[in-house]
């Protein structure tokens, strides 16, 4: 099974096929709009149904041009204006002679497509094999974390109180910190699988989500686990709505809070707001954190991207958290929004502003 990210890599690294239209030679991939030739009005060379790569280019217009369309992992590419040998043979004699070069280029384009699909398939299989190997190691890590979670739960329940909250309060501060650190670790482990399998964001049933309770639990976990650190999360607002969504919505909140603690300037608490909006719930996470330059803002949710000022403040980071958060948000039918304020001060040579990530469920 191929991976569309590999397809992008293959396509970007391979020479584009060329298609000649009259005296103009153009990149085949650029011809995804009806600009191959303007000699007919119906543009049948851009039909909606796709021809499999294995078949010859289907001739669809009076000039014998057709197209090939191939799809890998849901990503579709169409190359139009191609001419097959069979189509060229059917052209009038003069046109047939003139179309020789075009047929050669079209054959090259088809061969390129076949190679791209074959390479993508092969690389996809290799990628899946690597993921399986990594999965074996991940399985052992999960087993160890499960033991930690069971131990933490037993520590809490052994306090003899009536409720879980009461039991938790009876623990020593260090034990409370340990229990919450295990919860945060568990949350981090939920993020990684979404990178290799984004469809996991839609596993399980959509159901009423107690968003405020969910965020409150995360805030308490981060605060208790980070008791030695300067940053704290402050939760505000009121919400009783329970919009429908997958459990993965919690991952969006987790990533934003984790991110906030990482980049927030010391001694500036992270402000978390949860409020009802109509029948939905809006969550916002606001920090005093490094300015994201205007030209960088469009990239903030891209895989592997990290801002210049953010890198200066926290050198370690994968640039994957916000990407995954947006993938999960879209799977749940909403998007995470980023707002960056103006520079308020400079610290350690890095400009800081009031920055906010927010999303609305329902």
């Amino acid at each position, binding site marked *: 099974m191929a991976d569309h990210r590999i397809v992008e890599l293959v396509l970007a690294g391979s020479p584009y096929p060329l298609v000649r239209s009259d005296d103009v030679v153009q990149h085949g991939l650029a011809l995804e709009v009806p600009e191959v030739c303007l000699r007919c009005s119906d543009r049948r060379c851009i039909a909606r149904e796709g021809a499999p790569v294995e078949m010859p280019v289907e001739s669809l217009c009076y000039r014998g041009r057709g197209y090939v369309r191939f799809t890998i992992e849901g990503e579709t590419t169409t190359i139009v204006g191609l001419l097959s040998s069979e189509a060229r043979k059917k052209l009038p004699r003069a046109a047939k002679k003139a179309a020789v070069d075009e047929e050669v280029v079209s054959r090259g384009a088809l061969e390129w497509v076949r190679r791209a699909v074959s390479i993508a398939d092969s690389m996809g299989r290799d990628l*899946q094999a690597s993921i399986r190997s990594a999965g074996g190691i991940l399985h052992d890590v999960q087993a160890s974390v499960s033991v930690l979670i069971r131990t933490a739960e037993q520590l809490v329940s052994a306090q003899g109180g009536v409720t879980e909250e009461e039991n938790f309060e009876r623990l020593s501060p260090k034990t409370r910190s340990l229990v919450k650190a295990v919860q945060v670790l568990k949350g981090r482990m939920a993020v990684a699988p979404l990178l290799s399998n984004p469809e996991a964001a839609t596993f399980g049933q959509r159901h009423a989500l107690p968003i405020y309770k969910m965020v409150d639990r995360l805030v308490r976990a981060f605060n208790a686990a980070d008791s030695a650190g300067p940053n704290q999360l402050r939760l505000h607002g009121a919400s009783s709505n329970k919009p429908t969504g997958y459990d993965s919505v919690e991952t969006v909140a987790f990533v934003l809070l984790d991110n906030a603690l990482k980049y927030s300037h010391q001694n500036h608490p992270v402000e978390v707001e949860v409020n009802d909006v109509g029948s939905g719930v809006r969550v916002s996470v606001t920090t005093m954190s490094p300015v994201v330059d205007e030209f960088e803002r469009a990239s903030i949710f891209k895989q592997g991207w990290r801002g210049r000022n953010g890198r200066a403040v926290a050198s370690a980071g994968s640039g994957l958290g916000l990407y995954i958060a947006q993938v999960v948000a879209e799977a749940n039918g909403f998007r995470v929004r980023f707002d960056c304020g103006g520079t308020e001060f400079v610290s350690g040579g890095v400009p800081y502003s009031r920055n906010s990530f927010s999303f609305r469920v329902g």
Partner: protein
Amino acid sequence: MVGFILKLIRSALNHGKVDALGHDVPFEEHKKRVRIVVVDDESSSFPTEGLRADGYAVDWWESINLARLKRIEQGDFDIVILDIQGIVAEGFSSTGDGLGVLRRIKENNPNQIVVAFSGQMYSVNSVPFFKLADDVLKKPVAVIECKELLDRLIKSQISVRAYWQHLTSQLRERGVSESRLRVLESEMVLANRKGKSISLEAFRDTVGTIESLHTTYGWVKRIAGLWQIIG
């Protein structure tokens, strides 16, 4: 035939409804009657003891074989929590793992609630397993998440009314007449009043010899479980 006619007359005189029984049980009591089995080769993965301490009736199997699969198919459990890897003791799973077991359970009884329980969310190959299940728990899991999911399933899908609908729907699909369904209902209500459940033999006498008799009788057993009736 005479016996059936007598039952039919008795059912006309007895206006009891199966789904009217057991409605007034508080949730905390109701959840204790729901029978749950966890199939996972690693005992620490699932918070069995934590849930038992909270009143849930949880069994744990480290693997599944034909005999245990039959117990599931014959209605011994309301909820099955199923791992994907390392749980198949014999070669009866078409895929060699939990997906094959899940497919068999669902082919036999689509209304059996199965929760996929695995940490393999990273793999695209696991998608069929998670999508076929009724719900999902991802490893590693906290006890609070298990409670929230179980309570949600119990409130939405586990009731005498829901089970009665599954039972009558399956019986109608197997050609059992409405008159026989009325007799069955009457017999179940009468048995409930005596603190009993109807036997497999009495069930067969009433509905006739039908396909997948044991699987369908499993719904009678599940209803008896919610009524807290044994035998």
